[in-house]
């Protein structure tokens, strides 16, 4: 088991390597979410990005479980993500009990097995792009060094979005955000297509999509777009849809 320092250093080295090359924004952010879980002892984590209208959208999560996606989604009304997004400050909340400031979000989170939540803003100059969110199972207070690590990972997520070259006019923040959001939507659409063709749940469909993209060294968004546009070749489609029992490690 690597020490936290080693894992943290390797996370940022990998990120630096990735960001100088062509990369897929959803894939990199999903990997970051996985590292958050490992580094901070969280049960789950996710990254939300705001669209130009100020609505928060799920960009990546450590797990594609529907109830987790829903917990992020309801934070358009209330919750730590919305508070961190609006204030531009970290929200560290160690107890989702009776004292919680979120009457709808807190019971939903507790019902899903989470006792504490934390949200860290993704800030660039004076704008907040979105938030990185941690869901904790057993109560364990975040110490100062945890908060620093989480905020550093949120900065890593910010850099990833800013460095995304999926758009021609890459210096425009709105275009970059729009491009990242469209990537995520394309992946949701592809999950639906695969789920129907393969008669599996959408989380399994995501695992198939991700594993296929990795095996072929292709960007997740490009594969998702090809699935939605039906431009995958016959043999590729067969391969993508026959992964039952082979995707147990797809999320690692």
């Amino acid at each position, binding site marked *: 088991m690597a020490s936290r320092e080693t894992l943290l250093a390797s996370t940022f080295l990998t990120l630096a390597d990735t960001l100088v090359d062509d990369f897929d924004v959803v894939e990199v952010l999903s990997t970051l979410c996985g590292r958050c879980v490992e580094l901070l002892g969280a049960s789950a984590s996710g990254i939300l990005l705001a*669209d*130009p*209208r*100020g*609505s*928060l*959208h*799920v960009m990546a999560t450590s797990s594609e479980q529907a109830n987790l*996606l829903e917990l992020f*989604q309801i934070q*358009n009304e209330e919750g730590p993500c919305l508070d961190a997004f609006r204030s531009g400050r970290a929200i560290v909340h160690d107890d989702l009990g009776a004292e919680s400031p979120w009457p709808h979000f807190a019971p939903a989170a507790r019902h899903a097995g989470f006792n504490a939540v934390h949200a860290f803003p993704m800030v660039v100059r004076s704008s907040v792009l979105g938030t990185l969110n941690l869901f904790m199972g057993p109560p364990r207070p975040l110490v100062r060094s945890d908060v620093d690590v989480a905020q550093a990972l949120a900065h890593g997520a910010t850099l990833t979005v800013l460095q995304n070259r999926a*758009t*021609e*006019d890459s210096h*425009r*923040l*709105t*275009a970059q955000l*729009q491009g990242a959001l*469209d*990537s*995520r*939507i*394309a*992946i*949701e*659409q*592809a*999950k*639906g*297509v*695969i*789920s*129907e*063709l393969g008669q599996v749940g*959408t989380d399994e469909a995501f695992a198939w999509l991700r594993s296929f993209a990795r095996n072929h060294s292709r960007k997740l968004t490009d594969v*998702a*777009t090809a699935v*939605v*546009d039906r431009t995958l070749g016959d043999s590729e489609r067969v391969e993508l849809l026959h992964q039952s029992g082979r995707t147990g490690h797809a999320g690692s």
Partner: protein
Amino acid sequence: MTVIAGLEGTELTGAGLCAASAGLLSVDGAAIALLTGDGVPVATYRSDPSLQPIEDLQFVLGVGPALDAYRLRLAVAEPDFAGSAPLRWPGLARLALDSGVRSVSALPLQIGAARLGALTLYDGRPGALEGERLEDAHVLAGIVTRALVAMQAGGAGYVLVAELSDAVLPPGEIDHAEVHQASGMVSVQLGIDVGDALARLRARAFADGTTVRQVAVEVLARRLRFYP
């Protein structure tokens, strides 16, 4: 966001959306082209009839701002048809200048991998949309896309107003992950593209007096299936 406030009271027709877009972005004219997979126009709208010839020409030539924005899924522009720099679409220059158009910008109308078409903005002054105006144009393209889905779903006027406020007030009903997943499933069930599948979900919600998200949840749970 000023661009959204400016949409209040917009007539929710293709031409109404074009007129509102041109007004909000302070350009002389705007056009919307709804396109099929390989870039064939299925419907076109414009704020001003004088834009029809140049819109028609790009579909005859098979090149132009709307087709490029649609194919590349990116904003594209020609800052000056009368300038000295090489032109992006030389075949359009003569007719553009004859129609009083010096510059043009086009943005894709898309939701994820689903492409509906493109929004093209024409102006008599040189210069591509830049800075805040380009950002506003991106926001506007997102709203126009959602309004077009509602129009394709065949909602009555009052419903279209609701759809537009849905698109404006966070969180837009249509922007839930379940809706995009269900669009993918329905596109397979009906053998149609995912943009049309989204319109079918919307139409079903209108018919049942429920929300598109509720319909999506039923589809995902495999309690509701669409048959061709």
